[in-house]
């Protein structure tokens, strides 16, 4: 009970902090927080597949990009459309794509799943470049209107955009967290651990995978849509490129695969490292590559795994007697 109350206090402090953040830290850091929140939701969507079902996708940017393009197209071509319906249409586009692909992709796993998505991701990238009339080719779609909920436009008021983005992304994060607590979330963990046994217990594995796949696409779509609004630009390289598929994988790996909050920590660390290193080198590729190598070789369970090991060590040191009795 005490613990619960303490948790509530922490949550309230956190929310108040975020609410006053723009006032306290100014516009630059406010935008940093928005970027982090977008990539946090995006990385969580990847972790839904990778951490909770064991599916590694090299093409998650498809859904991120579809979210962005959907929203941008809606705002460009539908006069007077509100910002929420526009986001909704972007997310719908991502979900529709996932629904089309799901019958095919849930039948494979492991390496084939990863490669299949690499190929489909590349296809979408090429299509975005070639279908100039719809996507604007290499230039992408830019300068579309960004209406606010209560104001004409959010373009010149990043503070308002911050609140809109944070509420949408916050709700998304909460929904994903909630899902892991439901029976369905438990089944996903079971599939990651031992898909055969899940089958013998009476669950339909491909269907479960399909559901998680579509949900993952949904949240990637949300992230992509907000990202497009944030930059007021959706382009093939910015939203659909192969780098965009790997950024969230890196964050998930840094934070720790499979733990729910790991990816959020990973995003923060990755953004920080990226920011620091990019002062010395222009090459994001180099940064991403080195981080991937280091994480896989030296800390395969990420920072969350590191913390867990440390905590275990401390707690065993503290209560050696109790442990002995149990054993």
């Amino acid at each position: 009970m005490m613990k619960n109350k303490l948790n509530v206090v922490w949550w309230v402090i956190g929310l108040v902090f975020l609410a006053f953040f723009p006032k306290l830290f100014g516009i630059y850091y406010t935008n940093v927080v928005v970027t982090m929140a977008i990539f946090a939701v995006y990385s969580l969507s990847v972790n839904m597949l990778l951490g909770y079902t064991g599916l590694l996708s090299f093409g998650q940017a498809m859904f991120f990009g579809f979210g962005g393009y959907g929203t941008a197209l809606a705002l460009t071509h539908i006069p007077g459309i509100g910002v929420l319906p526009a986001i909704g249409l972007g997310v719908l586009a991502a979900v529709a794509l996932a629904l089309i692909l799901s019958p095919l992709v849930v039948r494979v796993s492991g390496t084939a799943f990863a490669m299949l998505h690499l190929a489909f991701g590349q296809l979408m990238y090429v299509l975005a470049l070639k279908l100039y009339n719809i996507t604007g080719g290499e230039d992408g779609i830019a300068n579309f209107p960004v209406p606010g909920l209560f104001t004409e436009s959010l373009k010149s008021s990043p503070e308002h955009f911050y609140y809109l983005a944070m509420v949408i992304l916050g709700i998304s994060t909460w929904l994903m967290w909630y899902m892991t607590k439901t029976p369905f979330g438990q089944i996903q963990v079971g599939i990651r651990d031992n898909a055969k046994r899940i089958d013998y217990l009476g669950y339909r594995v491909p269907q479960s995978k399909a559901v998680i796949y579509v949900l993952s696409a949904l949240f990637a779509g949300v992230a992509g849509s907000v990202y497009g609004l944030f930059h007021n630009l959706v382009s093939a390289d910015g939203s659909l490129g192969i780098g965009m598929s790997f950024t969230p994988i890196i964050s998930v790996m840094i934070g720790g695969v499979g733990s729910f909050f790991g990816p959020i920590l990973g995003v923060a660390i990755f953004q920080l490292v990226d920011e620091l290193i990019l002062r010395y080198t222009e090459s994001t590729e180099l940064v991403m590559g080195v981080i991937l190598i280091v994480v896989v070789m030296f800390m395969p369970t990420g920072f969350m795994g590191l913390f867990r090991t440390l905590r275990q060590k401390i707690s065993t040191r503290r209560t050696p007697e109790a442990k002995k009795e149990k054993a």
Partner: protein
Amino acid sequence: MNILETKDLKHSFGPLAVLFGVDLQIEEGERHAVIGPNGAGKTTLFNTITGTYHPTSGRVFFKGKDITGYKPYKLARIGIGRSFQITSTFTNLTAFQNIRLAILSKDGVRFNLLRPVEKMKKITEETDEMLKRINLYDDRNTPAASLSYGKSRALEISMALATNPELVLLDEFAAGMSKEETADAVALIRKLTEGKTVVIIEHDMDVVFSLADRITVLHYGKILATGKPEEIRNNQAVKDAYLGDLEV
């Protein structure tokens, strides 16, 4: 009435035939053991019945209904469970979470995305009750990977039974167990399978003769004999083929 029946069940892996037409008959409510030397096709028989493989030919009937080629999840839903010779639990999940997955399936809670599973009182109670029955309540929060061998085997068997199947197939549940562990496991199975039909594959003849109501002897992919334990014990063909070597 026979709860499970196979008719002329055949299976081969490529050119290698393993089952040559098996007519297995399991009566409702009995405990039936399938024995036979290594390579006789016992596990393959289980696998063709429970949907791991589609049999090359022949049919499988459950309560008179043709279930040939049913996928495992479908068999689980109509009331057939199985355990595995090689422990196949969810190693990263706790004993509680392992059993809970079985209980959730039993209660038909599958695609529920709306309520936290912790808040489902009935599920938690049933799971804890099961853990108490199988003497794993003290290890409730231990990951399956950290359980002792005997306990992880108990968990393995209990997961097959926790979905509350009418018919359960246990593949060498006592494999690798010590004498005491085996005795515990036998007692556990007696307790948990009351009123259910059980088919076991087993090498340990003490277990077979103490647990089984009837025995089927499989030999090179064919049924050599079926009958009550004493009939099997006195069957000359069985003695020649199998028991003779073992009981010396």
